[in-house]
């Protein structure tokens, strides 16, 4: 019979102690958590909303909500995953409030496979860094990810930009692991296809 792993043998995340202190009213401990994650939370919000002012507001609201609801954090997940989940929800809410016709849920806008079927099979040579300067490359990357539906953009941001695991991404988004995998695949393929317009090897003669 396999031995049940004792929790005592698992490495305890340093956030656990900070969260415990913050729960007891230690503002300095909470401030340390803010310092650790403010950049990530801002970045997630900016990726989802594509707007810097919104991202600033969302980061403030997300940390305030976390602070006020700290007692509800049970520690079943990482503190950072819980925080990301709050920020994602705030971001999606912000998008819904915008007066646009675009759909903004994790379910709508991801039903179709349009754009996820590879059509461009050119190699990327020379590689993108050789082809474009830093500034121009940044513009291309921003423009391209902006074109993705929010549901795909969010999954790609958490899994590939923020490097959350598939399980953490699922937890932060309230999705199943298979749903995350399916959206991630389509997000990656759509981005690849769109980037290929800029990065594809040119066949006809010398290019500028």
């Amino acid at each position: 019979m396999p031995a049940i792993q004792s929790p005592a043998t698992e490495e305890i995340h340093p956030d656990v102690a900070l969260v415990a202190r913050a729960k007891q009213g230690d503002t300095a401990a909470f401030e340390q958590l803010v310092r650790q994650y403010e950049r990530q939370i801002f970045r997630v919000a900016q990726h989802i909303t594509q707007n810097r002012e919104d991202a600033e507001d969302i980061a403030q609201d997300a940390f305030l909500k976390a602070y006020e609801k700290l007692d509800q954090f049970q520690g079943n997940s990482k503190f950072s995953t819980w925080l990301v989940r709050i920020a994602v929800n705030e971001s999606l809410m912000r998008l819904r409030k915008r007066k646009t016709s675009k759909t903004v849920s994790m379910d709508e806008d991801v039903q179709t496979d349009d754009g996820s079927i590879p059509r461009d099979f050119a190699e990327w040579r020379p590689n993108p860094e050789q082809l474009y300067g830093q500034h121009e490359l940044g513009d291309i990357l921003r423009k391209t990810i902006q074109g993705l539906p929010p549901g795909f953009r969010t999954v790609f941001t958490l899994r590939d930009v923020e490097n959350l695991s598939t399980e953490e991404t699922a937890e932060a988004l309230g999705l199943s692991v298979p749903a995350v995998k399916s959206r991630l695949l389509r997000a990656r393929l759509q981005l690849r296809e769109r980037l290929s317009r800029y990065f594809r090897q040119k066949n006809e003669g010398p290019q500028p």
Partner: protein
Amino acid sequence: MTCTDFLSQLTDYFDGQVEPELLAEVQAHICECHHCEVVLDTTRQTIAIYREHEIYEFPAELRDRLHTAIMTKCRASR
């Protein structure tokens, strides 16, 4: 293995989670199908380029302003 089968394994392949009995088929397909080899390589580059380039700046001035605003709100809510 068809190209569609290959694509369905792509995410697990990046994560090193393809079932062992399928892995040989996936690798054989990459050797045989140039299109899928390119899709694999350029998708890998897509992930890497977004991971390596911070596309939104977070300058010190913004960090300080944000940090102060967050802590002011939290302290006021007590």
